[in-house]
């Protein structure tokens, strides 16, 4: 599909200027793929949180955007990768209110609530990879007790 092809990208995350590019790319890609305004906003916000984590805690890295189709439903997958110090306690990092830097502690846990699928892989010393995916028209993920 030529409309989704432009959504494919690999962007560096090395400065707060790059956070702006990431947000703009995700906004454009999500609109192109067919996400509604609220879902676009959620996805861009999640991307902003994750890109900032990559920058602040991971010491910079990259974001890859990839359009997908599953059972005829289009989606957008975003992968954030850094080679920073990694996260020792993932459970703690995902809980609300936890922060090791200057945020409000909403970064990871908040981003997870804004997308349909969320996967994180991290090992101390070998960096962190966060992969999120959202699908056009799918209802939001169920509310969880955390």
């Amino acid at each position, binding site marked *: 599909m030529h409309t989704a092809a432009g959504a494919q990208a690999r962007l560096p995350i090395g400065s707060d200027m790059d956070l702006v590019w990431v947000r703009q790319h995700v906004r454009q890609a999500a609109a192109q793929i067919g996400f509604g305004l609220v879902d676009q906003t959620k996805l*861009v916000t999640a991307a902003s949180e994750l890109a900032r984590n990559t920058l602040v805690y991971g010491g910079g890295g990259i974001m890859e955007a990839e359009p997908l189709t599953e059972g005829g439903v289009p989606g957008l997958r975003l992968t954030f990768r850094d080679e920073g110090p990694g996260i020792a306690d993932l459970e703690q990092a995902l809980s609300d209110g936890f922060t090791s830097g200057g945020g409000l502690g909403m970064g990871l846990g908040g981003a997870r609530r804004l997308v349909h699928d969320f996967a994180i892989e991290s090992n101390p010393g070998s960096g962190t990879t966060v992969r999120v995916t959202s699908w056009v028209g799918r209802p939001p993920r169920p509310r969880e007790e955390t």
Partner: protein
Amino acid sequence: MSQAFPGPYGGPVTGHVPVLRLGEVLLVTLQGDLHDSTAQQLQQDLAETISRSGATGVIIDISGVEIVDSFLGRVLAEIAGQTELLAARTVVVGMRPAVAITLVELGLSLPGVHTALSTEVAMELLTQHAPSSRYGGLRQESP
């Protein structure tokens, strides 16, 4: 008191985000995608402008902002907090519905931040408890 502000509406007093003055209220309009550093610069500029001018209210119009993430949310909450310490109040106006929905899901409630749907309503909110500005909410110039 108003000498620090050139022109009838104050004119820009910061490098990135202009802070305009309407009587005792400062008006800031955020537009597009803000850099983290621009948001932080605004925070400093507002504190300095309030303390220099004695403004009693700040209106931050975010109708042109497409997303508010936890960083910008924190900056808005901090602006509200520091404004209060400087004896002024902050009202955030014009939040887009999609932004409000996303903020709630993200888990940010912006404690201490007053909100209004429009600049007009915010202006009323800010001037009704400030007797000195009741008769001069919009700055009066002698000809």
